[in-house]
């Protein structure tokens, strides 16, 4: 039980993390795994930029290059950005709403391990005959024609990790709906919780179409299906629809939580409440809603006809309105405030012009006739990196600095943080700004090389030099993290001094049950209110100290996920190896067996008793 041991050996710690159902520890697991995949995806990006630094380069072969771009996109979206965001949601959201854990701690753990094994499975493709090579969008005709098992790793890996994400989404939704502390009405929820809520709803409705598409692709390649084989009556455009019905909301699944992180940071370091809170909430919900209405703008050149193109053009433009509302509300939040330029705030401040630039090129792409020129050119590459790096990654880096003290009770070096920022930020603009023009000058995306003297040589070189800056920035960040862990200087509660929301009111290190007494929330920015009124404890309580019910740790999530991991190998080699079907069955037996064990064994959890809480020792892990 996690409450007993003070100092544990490595084995015990490992076992603790393998079995934990504590949202704070799962957050750390997401952070580590997501961080690892982020570095892998970054290395793949560097290979791409080295290859394209000069014309007619043969640093990597054409086939390997296609594997690189595919895995770079897939890794960054599914295995880095999303898990990192899920990590922050896990770390912060329950504390923000005054909950002792998420609604389904067991499922929370299961969600992580599914993602983990799915991600590992996908990356094993590098060592088992080659990675997927049809682009992260994996358009059907090319994916079906792709030799080897790369695409099979892609579909199976994403199916497994997709289930994990879906479970995570449902979990957060229920947590926010049912487990808010007394007084935490919907319109008092911090923006990060709101964006978590909307992003989770998007996950719930966007992942099923992806799952369906992946299943189609899987049966087409492995089990004799004909969904995308046009000679058998199939249709490849179905894949494009399913993929983008998922794919566009996915963009908002990524960017909304980043918006949430920035909203918290702007308010905190401007010492001012968020300007136009209700408009911000409304804009978030509206973006989430419109996110489902615009998927075909990725398909303007597919030939859907002018009516569809015109409708999706206008619908896409409409999204600019709520996004603009957000930008201006952020500006007005810092306006009239007292801005402290911590590293987190620097990232937030840098985000505004960067994301605005990414947003406006989005409007250009929204115009279908103009998109005919820009689509699948480097202009698009520039655009979505401005949105995803300039929005999501800056948000992740900002969140890392901002929430680090909350998660680890230590603080990342601000000096090194600034180094990372400048290297990364300048490197980023150097890499991607010029790519807009490469697109306009006729350079298609996903080319493994380009001929000299087409007017692209210099721009590509500049772009590659910029990428070095980004890599150096990340390297400094890694040093920063290691240094901080080694130094291990505790910083205590509310380290920024200007914390406004409930998570900063919790004592450090955060007790495993989060709140000894459930807090009573008295308004938006409840911690700020308490501080202004001179409440040293930072919280008003809604209940007397009493027994706290906690869930038991469990190893079953790892077993369930591992079973699917095994089964995936069976499916992959179906019809090729004699052991394929037995392995497939074995994996499914492990998974379903573990699920049956879980449901047969009554697991009521345990209670932390009032007496233990009273003598203050309950606060230790």
């Amino acid at each position, binding site marked *: 039980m996690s409450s007993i041991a003070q100092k544990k050996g490595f084995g015990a710690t490992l076992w603790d993390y393998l079995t934990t159902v504590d949202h704070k520890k799962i957050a750390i697991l997401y952070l580590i795994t997501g961080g690892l995949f982020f570095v892998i995806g970054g290395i793949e990006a560097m290979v791409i930029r080295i290859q394209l630094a000069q014309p007619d380069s043969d640093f990597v072969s054409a086939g390997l290059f296609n594997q690189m771009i595919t895995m770079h996109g897939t890794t960054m979206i599914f295995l880095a950005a999303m898990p990192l965001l899920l990590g922050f949601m896990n770390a912060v959201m329950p504390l923000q709403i005054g909950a002792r854990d998420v*609604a*389904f701690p067991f499922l929370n753990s299961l969600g992580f391990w599914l993602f983990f094994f799915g991600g590992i499975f996908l990356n094993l493709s590098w060592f088992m005959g080659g990675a997927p090579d049809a682009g992260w969008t994996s358009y059907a005709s090319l994916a079906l024609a792709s030799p080897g098992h790369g695409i099979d790793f892609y579909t199976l890996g994403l199916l497994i990790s997709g289930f994990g994400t*879906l479970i995570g989404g*449902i*979990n957060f*939704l*229920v947590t926010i*709906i*049912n*487990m808010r502390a007394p007084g935490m009405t919907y319109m008092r929820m911090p923006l990060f919780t709101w964006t978590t809520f909307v992003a989770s709803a998007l996950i*719930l*409705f966007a*992942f*099923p*179409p992806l*799952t*369906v*598409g992946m*299943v*189609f692709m899987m*049966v*087409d390649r492995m*089990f*004799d*299906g*004909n*969904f995308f*084989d046009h*000679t*058998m*009556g*199939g*249709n490849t455009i*179905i894949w494009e629809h*399913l993929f983008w*019905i998922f794919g566009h909301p996915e963009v908002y699944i990524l960017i909304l939580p980043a918006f949430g992180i920035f909203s918290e940071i702007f308010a905190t370091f401007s010492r001012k409440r968020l300007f136009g809170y209700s408009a911000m909430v409304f804009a978030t919900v509206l973006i989430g809603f419109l996110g489902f209405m615009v998927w075909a703008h990725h398909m303007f050149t597919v030939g859907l006809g002018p009516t569809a193109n015109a409708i999706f053009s206008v619908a896409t433009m409409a999204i600019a309105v709520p996004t603009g509302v957000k930008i201006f509300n952020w500006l007005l939040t810092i306006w009239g405030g007292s801005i402290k330029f911590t590293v987190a705030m620097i990232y937030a401040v840098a985000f505004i012009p960067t994301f605005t630039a990414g947003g406006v090129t989005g409007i250009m792409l929204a115009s279908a006739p103009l998109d005919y020129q820009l689509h699948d050119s480097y202009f698009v590459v520039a655009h979505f990196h401005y949105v995803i790096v300039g929005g999501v990654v800056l948000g992740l880096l900002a969140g890392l600095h901002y929430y680090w003290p909350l998660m680890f009770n230590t603080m990342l070096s601000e000096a090194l943080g600034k180094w990372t920022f400048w290297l990364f930020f300048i490197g980023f603009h150097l890499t991607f700004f010029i790519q807009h023009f490469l697109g306009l000058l006729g350079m298609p995306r996903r080319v493994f090389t380009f001929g000299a003297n087409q007017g692209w040589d210099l721009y590509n070189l500049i772009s590659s030099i910029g990428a070095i800056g980004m890599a150096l920035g990340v390297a400094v960040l890694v040093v920063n993290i290691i240094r901080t862990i080694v130094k291990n200087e505790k910083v205590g509660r509310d380290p920024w001094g200007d914390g406004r929301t409930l998570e900063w009111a919790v004592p450090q290190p955060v007790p495993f049950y989060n709140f000894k007494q459930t807090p009573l929330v008295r308004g938006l920015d409840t911690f700020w209110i308490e501080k202004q009124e001179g409440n040293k404890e930072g919280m008003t309580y809604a209940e007397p100290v009493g027994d706290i019910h906690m869930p038991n740790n469990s190893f079953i999530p790892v077993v369930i996920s591992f079973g699917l991991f095994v089964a995936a190998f069976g499916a992959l080699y179906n019809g090729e190896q004699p052991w394929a079907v037995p392995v497939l069955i074995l994996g499914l037996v492990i998974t379903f067996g573990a699920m*049956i064990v879980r*449901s*047969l064994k*009554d697991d*009521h959890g345990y209670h932390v008793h009032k007496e233990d809480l009273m003598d203050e020792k309950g606060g230790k892990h």
Partner: protein
Amino acid sequence: MDLNTKYTPQSWPDHPENTTLEGKNKFTGFWLFLGGETVTFASLFATYLALKNKGPSGMEFTTQDLFELPLVFIMTMLLLTSSLTSVYAMYHMKNYNFKAMQAWLMVTVILGLAFLGFEIYEFNHYVHLGFTFGQSAFSSAFFILVGTHGAHVVVGLGWIILLMVRNAKRGLNLYNAPKFYLASLYWHFIDVVWVFIFTVVYLMGVVG
């Protein structure tokens, strides 16, 4: 609150499925899950409609000469009735009448198994005609749509049987009441999906 407390019909709460926080969470979560399931089936239906009757050139199978309404009508009736019997079971669950609940769940399971038997017969029949999974895009879409529903039926039946066996000796409490409730909710969902399959695949296939 001890989840294993014994209740009497008088002390048993009106909404045993969401009296505890745990039950309430499961209740909310499961409804959301069904939302996701709805999108899944919507995607499958859309694909089916796009690929209906599509196959390699010269394909001889169409919905008109493949489907037989009488068989499917019987299957529909079986599943609809099983949905009704699961409502009875939940009625008794709310009245803390464990034996009656188990009995009605048993009826539900038997009806569900009968449905499944017919479905297996139907699929087998098609395969013998040469309408196999890999025969055409149409066959793939058909088997995936109806087969996914069939898989849901299997999972639903397994779940209900597991709950009945597991709790046979222990009777109802606030820990397992939400589970029974959700299993029955799942069963209703499966039933609703079937109504759509019956309409969109079979009825519109033969008549439309």
